[in-house]
């Protein structure tokens, strides 16, 4: 395989990771000034900032790889819905605090397994971004785990809300552990990560947290997929409309 071809593959892979981070970070910013109390409002902004920062690192690297003068903002603001490659779980609406907590828990556990693997990537930049990300993720996971315990084993209402959130989100977790051809190829080359190998440990960790929180793991009969091929839920279009309108209404301006 030629170096150029491989660059294209890494660019595509990096954009997927960037989209995951940006879309989740954007969703988290929707909590700012809506948090259940002030300290928690601040903590959620922190997590959002980490994800936006991570997105910028990935997009910055993608811009470098594209080598045609593209910037991070071109990727974030000038691509359409069908071109975004984030996993669906990231684009789902903010929901209530239980919903956001469960989404964070699922993603935090995933990242706590994924990023250490990406740190071993042959691609030094991806490895470096992962090394920075894992520090943040460990802190995120501590938070989402603590909240899952508190809310799961808190009041009858909080328990009900948590179980409902788990049931509504479970179907979107399957695509975290899939590989398409490109991802398989990069995993083989030790650039990317073999996500399929992460599921067993993810399940074990999530199940143990849920059971400690007196919550139940749903069965696997409901599966929704499509993020990596640009086959999105209706939520993403609205998110992008809002996020991109100003940038697009003043083309080629500096901000």
């Amino acid at each position, binding site marked *: 395989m030629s170096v150029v071809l491989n660059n294209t593959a890494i660019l595509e892979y990096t954009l997927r990771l960037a989209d995951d981070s940006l879309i989740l970070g954007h969703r988290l910013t929707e909590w*700012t000034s809506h948090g*259940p109390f002030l300290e928690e409002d601040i903590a959620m902004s922190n997590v959002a900032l980490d994800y*936006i*920062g991570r*997105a910028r690192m990935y997009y910055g690297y993608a811009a470098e790889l594209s080598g045609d003068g593209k910037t991070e903002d071109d990727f974030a603001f000038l691509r359409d819905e069908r071109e975004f490659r984030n996993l669906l779980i990231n684009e789902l609406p903010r929901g209530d605090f239980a919903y956001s907590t469960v989404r964070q828990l699922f993603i935090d556990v995933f990242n706590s397994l994924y990023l250490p693997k990406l740190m071993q990537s042959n691609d030094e930049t991806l490895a470096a971004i992962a090394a920075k990300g894992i520090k943040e993720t460990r802190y995120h996971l501590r938070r989402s785990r603590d909240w899952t315990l508190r*809310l799961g084993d808190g009041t009858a209402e*909080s328990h009900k809300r948590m179980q409902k959130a788990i049931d509504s989100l479970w179907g979107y977790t399957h695509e975290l552990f899939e590989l398409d051809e490109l991802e398989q190829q990069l995993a083989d080359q030790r650039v990317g990560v073999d996500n399929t190998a992460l599921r067993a440990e993810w399940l074990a960790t999530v199940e143990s947290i849920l059971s400690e929180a007196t919550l139940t793991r749903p069965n696997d009969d409901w599966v929704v997929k499509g993020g990596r091929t640009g086959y999105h839920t209706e939520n993403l279009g609205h998110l992008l409309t809002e996020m991109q309108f100003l940038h697009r209404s003043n083309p080629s301006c*500096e*901000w």
Partner: protein
Amino acid sequence: MSSEEKLMENFMRKIEAEEKIEPKDWMPKAYRKNLIRQISQHGHSEIIGMQPEGNWLTRAPSLRRKAVLLSKVQDEAGHGLYLYSATETLGISRAELIAALQDGSAKYASIFNYPTQTWADVGAIGWLVDGAAIVNQISLQRTSYGPYARAMVRICKEESFHVRQGYEMMIALAQGSPAQKALAQDALNRFYWPALMMFGPHDSESAHSARSMQWKIKRETNDDLRQKFVDQTVAQIEFLGLQHPDADIKWNEETGHYDGGELDWDEFYSVINGNGHCNRQRIEHHVAAHEEGAWVREAMQAYREKQRNKAHKQAA
């Protein structure tokens, strides 16, 4: 001399000597009340101030601006937190503070009742609103109540960042496309006057000023602080290449200050009294978030109690 008089004498001696009053020190009831009013109002302003800027978080036109704005709004939440903590040292609880904000008995800066209609408003707020706030807050670093003074020192550092970032945003707009420059001018026109009003009414009209000055809660008068801000803003507007919103602004050789046109105080009081675009919206937003979060706070409490009982059982 009664013991109360002695305490008062000692208190005034400390004030005169520029010693800080600390939470455990004796203080006159009215001093405490005055402080609670001022510090909580300040804290509420930080919290309500998250909303007009938060209004643009999901629409920021670049990733860098999005991150900068989010971290600014988060700073404001942090300022609210320090100030609530400082108020709590005076013997009032967070719940009481929030209730007072929500029922309207406590105020917040009226500047946040103005809508942020365009992206340039975010720049104008950083530059002018945080800029006006910092003029006031720098003088409050010398306020007589220790926890308030220390909160101001911390806050001022971050505020000066906000002002720089806001102004830097205005530079980008003013030097950008004609449409961007027009946005910058429009935002300046709308936020300049309300920013001047942040310093409060003229000293002659100010209900709390004289006492607060005597107790060194306030260190400089409304009009003096406002003049500082007017003076520093002229050159900044010029540098941007924008038109000064005050057609009467003029250098006064004699005083060494700029003279400007009179403010529209009727409009100011009308907004304070509830007729701003956002007065109701801001409080409703705060109430809605607070109510939406009630089940979370209850669950947290219930969980804590369960854990405590468990630990208790194990110990028994």
